[in-house]
């Protein structure tokens, strides 16, 4: 449904006076999401995962530059096309309730989202009611203002916002932040049910465990690009991971020993350096000559795709 080819996002930053540097927080990013699929994008916070979501919806800040191709249902997207798709075909579940207008009741905002997605007022009312029904919120909660919602209700409202217009692709940007395990499980279940109705989702999260529970494929995001895509989510174990960063991420989970490896520090120092070669060279077990020369492309391995010359 969604195919991203070679996406770059860069910003110009002024250091001192007119001295400009170009930052490229997202580069060489390739990704494909099929119908009925939940693709989890897992990576550390502040790594640029949200930029990916914003790039697909074209809501990046004005000083951002993008390159590469984004195709939706086989059509390459440009500004004009994205304008028509937003809300109607691609919708966003934002990070928190702060993305809702604090001065409007949630019922009105969900209704408005339906109207903006192209429904008539009558249809929008029906869509709003069924959206609230689907996320199992009572009718009375429509009259609440965002600041009156509890954490769990807020998540449900945000899902209702994203689904009310009937958009087939849902992008969820860190929707699990700050949820306790019970709410998280509820949210993931809700997402699964939503997607099984013939939609697709991109779930952006820093929580590898949450991703494991719900996603069909897991893409590991590091150093501004996707370093590995794992097809098999069932019984994910360390030996199914091929990239040294993915393994480090796996080892850092509490149940796997909480091991923090040096790998993060090594690559982050190289980020934005616009230099040749693999960002992770020197930090993994076995450097090769090739690692110095070029960034490895996503190459197929047994359990998915990986960007590593060693795999």
């Amino acid at each position, binding site marked *: 449904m969604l195919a991203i080819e070679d996406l770059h996002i860069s910003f110009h930053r002024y250091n001192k006076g007119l001295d400009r540097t170009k930052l490229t927080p997202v580069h060489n990013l390739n990704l494909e999401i099929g119908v009925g699929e939940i693709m989890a994008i897992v990576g550390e916070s502040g790594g640029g995962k949200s930029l990916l979501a*914003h790039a697909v*919806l074209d*809501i990046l800040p004005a000083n951002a530059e993008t390159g590469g191709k984004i195709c939706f249902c086989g059509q390459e997207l440009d500004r004009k096309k994205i*304008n028509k798709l*937003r*809300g*109607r075909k691609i*919708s*966003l579940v*934002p*990070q*928190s309730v*702060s*993305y*809702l*207008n*604090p*001065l*409007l009741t949630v019922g009105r905002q969900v209704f*408005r*989202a339906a109207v*903006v*997605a192209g429904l008539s007022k009558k249809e929008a009312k029906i869509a709003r009611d069924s959206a609230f029904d689907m996320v199992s919120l009572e009718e009375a909660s429509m009259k609440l*203002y965002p*600041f*009156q919602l509890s954490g769990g209700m807020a998540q449900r409202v945000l899902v209702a*916002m994203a689904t009310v*217009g009937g958009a087939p692709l849902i992008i969820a940007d860190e929707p699990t932040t700050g949820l306790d395990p019970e709410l998280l499980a509820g949210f993931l279940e809700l997402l699964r049910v939503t997607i099984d109705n013939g939609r697709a989702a991109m779930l952006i999260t820093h929580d590898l465990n949450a991703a494991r529970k719900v996603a069909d494929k897991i893409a590991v995001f590091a150093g501004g690009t996707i370093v590995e895509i794992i097809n098999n989510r069932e019984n994910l174990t360390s030996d199914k991971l091929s990239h040294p960063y993915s393994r480090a991420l796996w080892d850092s989970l509490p149940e796997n020993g909480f091991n923090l490896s040096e790998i993060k520090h090594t690559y982050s120092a190289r980020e934005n350096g616009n230099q040749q070669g693999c960002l992770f060279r020197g930090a993994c077990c076995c450097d090769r000559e090739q690692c110095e020369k070029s960034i490895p492309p996503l190459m197929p391995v047994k359990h998915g795709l990986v960007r590593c010359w060693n795999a």
Partner: protein
Amino acid sequence: MKTFCKYFASKMLRLSIIVAVVSVLSFVLVSFAPLDPITAYLGYDRLQISQEQEAQIISRWGLDKSPPERFLSWAGNILRGDFGKSVIFNEPVVDVIGKRFVASFWLMFFAWLFSGLLGFILGAVAGTFRNSLADRVIRFYAYTLASTPTFWVAMILLVFFAVKLGWFPVCCAGPLGVAPEDVSFADRLYHLALPVLTLSLVGIAQITLHTREKMIDFFQSNHATYALACGETRSSTAIFHGLRNILLPAITLQFASLGELFSGSVLAEVVFSYPGLGKATVDAGIRGDVPLLLGVVIFSTIFVVVGNLIADLLYTLVDPRVRTEEAI
């Protein structure tokens, strides 16, 4: 309701403290000012009265007493509602202020309304389409007007529209030779037009720039980004979400600017010889009418403070977050 009463009571207490402080300060200023109430009262006739007569007036008005004693008796009278008698109009101060304020009220009301509405709309447009041609034109206009004195704008308008084109009257609140109570409604509006235009044009600048900033801030907020992500266009985001969010600070600013409006109306009324409170203030100052001057000072203090109070109360009406906290 209980919290509201408490809130209101505390506001009223603050209001009375402000009025008390302002009356003490203005009384001190006036008592140091080189104003001679007897000259103000008698004018050139002062030369013709004898020393005894003058002494009589002084003791009758209590001018031989010390300033603190005079202040206490003046303040006591005010608390009883007696503001004294205006020397130049030969009428009770309360009556003068009442009559003059009605004239000024309409002037200020229309100016307040037009500058508020127009400024808000211009600011919202400029903020929504930041750095567009419209934004640049609006900003240029606002900066120019923000740095232009009111009386200068008044004179330019007067010269152009009244003298050169003859579209509007040159002065006053009604046609010359017609008693104030006989002036028709249409005539009143006709004479109000230029002063109102002056105050509106000048008053727009602040609210425009303020609203523009608020709109730009709004578009940087998470909920504006999300509205865009839901498929709203920039203008529909501004209309459906933005206006609601920036209305409150705009209303507050507009009520808080009553003080500037009041001082602006003084200047405009003088240029247009419009018989309002502002003109009366200037006359009282120039001709040494101390009771009227002090009366106007207290009145305008109350006027401005009440304006701010209204702005505070409106918060509770527009913002659900404040409203529910009140209700709890």
